[in-house]
């Protein structure tokens, strides 16, 4: 569905997107994560034909985004990271207007608008002026707008930013419906936790480059085989660290005062062995527990590995 080859976008000397290669299969949901200014929006705008790339090529549904812009626009539904609203229109007129831009006749337009309002659960707001809607509602209306022409490919730029947890969940529910309709979706976010549930694959962008690209299943697999133990000792911190580091399965030990974070490749069975070993050496263990590795840790690991730890402004929930 989507093919991106050596795509770059330069602003002056600065690369907003740098040599991006990506392939998204039809029907899959691809998540893009990255910190502010990583180039997510720029990539999406290029795919939506709003920006021309400086070099490289991209195809949507087989159409070149720079050469067959019109064809691309017909199959792409783009939801930007802002919601442009005409304050003089009501929700239904708003959808009606965009449907008209796609060349639908009056009867079809009304029908489509009502269906979409129902999909995003805004039916009772249909006659409200758009600028009276809450942020969450506007965002859902924006999604409905992107769907007016029933596009096969959806580009959603941080669709859930600024939403409260409840609205976020509702939004996710709508996305799942869209996914089950067989749409190909490209979605961006700062937060991995938001994407892992709805995406099939996830790409990490950093300073214009795609530095990691993984199937979500594979990431989950990593999670199953790696473990972090949190050990709280009363004393003998140094000794404990040495003991742990001597073990082959232990990958790293981080110390925070009297708390130790131990990253291992051990299976579940070895958990008690580790504890008894510590007790044998008369380490005063106060607490011993497993901390589940979440997607955020993995994400930080991935970004740290390839960027030398430039993740200060990473917004982690």
């Amino acid at each position: 569905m989507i093919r991106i080859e050596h795509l770059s976008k330069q602003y002056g000397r600065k690369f907003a997107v740098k040599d991006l290669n990506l392939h998204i299969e039809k029907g899959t949901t691809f998540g893009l994560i990255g910190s502010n200014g990583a180039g997510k929006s720029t990539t999406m705008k290029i795919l939506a034909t709003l920006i021309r790339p400086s070099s490289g090529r991209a195809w949507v549904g087989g159409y070149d985004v720079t050469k067959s812009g019109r064809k691309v626009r017909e199959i792409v539904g783009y939801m930007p990271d802002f919601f442009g609203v005409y304050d003089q229109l009501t929700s239904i007129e708003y959808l009606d207007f965009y449907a008209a831009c796609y060349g639908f006749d009056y009867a079809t337009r009304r029908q489509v608008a009502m269906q979409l309002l129902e999909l995003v659960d805004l039916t009772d707001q249909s006659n409200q002026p758009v600028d009276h809607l809450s942020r969450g509602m506007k965002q859902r209306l924006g999604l409905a707008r992107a769907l007016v022409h029933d596009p096969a490919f959806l580009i959603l730029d941080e669709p859930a930013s600024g939403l409260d947890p409840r609205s976020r969940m509702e939004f996710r529910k709508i996305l799942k419906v869209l996914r089950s309709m067989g749409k190909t979706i490209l979605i961006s976010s700062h937060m991995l936790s938001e994407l892992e549930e709805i995406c099939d694959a996830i790409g990490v962008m950093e300073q214009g480059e795609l530095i990691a690209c993984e199937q979500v299943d594979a990431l989950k697999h990593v999670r199953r085989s790696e473990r972090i133990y949190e050990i709280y000792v009363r004393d003998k911190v140094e000794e404990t660290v040495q003991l742990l580091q001597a073990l082959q399965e232990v990958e790293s030990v981080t110390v925070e005062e009297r708390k130790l974070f131990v990253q291992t490749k051990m299976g579940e069975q070895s958990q008690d062995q580790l504890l008894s070993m510590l007790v044998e050496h008369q380490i005063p263990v106060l607490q011993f527990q497993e901390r589940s590795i979440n997607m955020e840790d993995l994400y930080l690991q991935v970004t740290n590995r390839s960027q030398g730890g430039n993740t200060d402004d990473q917004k982690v929930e």
Partner: protein
Amino acid sequence: MIKKWSKRWVNPVFIQESQWRIRKKTTPWILFFHLLLMGIIVFFALFVFIAIEPFFDLRSGTNIFIIFSYLQLGMVVFISPAIASGLISAEREKQTLSLLLVTPLSSKQIILGKWLSSVGFMLLLYLSTLPVYVVIYNYGGISLDQALRVFLHLLITMLFLSSVGIFFSSLVKRTGISTILSYLVVIIWGIVSTFIFYLVSVFTSVINNVPINEIPFFWELFISLHPAASMAFVLDIEIAAALLNMHNMTFPVYILYFVIYTILTIFLLISSAYFLSPKRDQQKE
């Protein structure tokens, strides 16, 4: 067949913009005050004429028509840029422009829709003064064909100034700057050019040692591009007519005005569409 035709020509941007303008609460008031203002000035002129000459003749009717035509021209020149210069930049400020650009509408269609809506509103303003026309017509002194020519002149001026506004609106980001630039063009076009023309004609008459009213032919064509001057040609005012006789011209000079500004309008619209499309982005680098 009809469906296909309408699909091609019905411009949703134009329809939406016009609907919004018609629905706006201020619109009827603007139309009403426009008519009121025009009416007051024309009636005042009428009273003055009647006070001066107790026997109101055809010539006074003509003079009132001339005053009214210039009033209309002033309105067109004054209002068109104000309306058009915000049309694209406001979309940009409301962040709805990229939403429009991702629809299959081409940037040409967007520009055309916006431009037509602005011209449409100007025409509405023009039509709101029809009662005044009826009154003047009753006093005599104008022919229908003259009124039609004046209308054509006003229309061409509207089309042109709206395209100037649209052009700046798509060129610069902020509505304020776009409006200022549009008015700057209007001022240079309407006022500065008059001074330049005056200076040059004084200069050439001094150099060539000819009376100031004997203007070279080239310059005459040049003044016919001035909105007020060409309106004089359209109205067939005496000086203008005398000028034409001087050069044995039978060709109506105002046609030049119509042609040149139509071409300029088309050029400006095409450039506006160009600045709107993402192509420009690449050119800039």
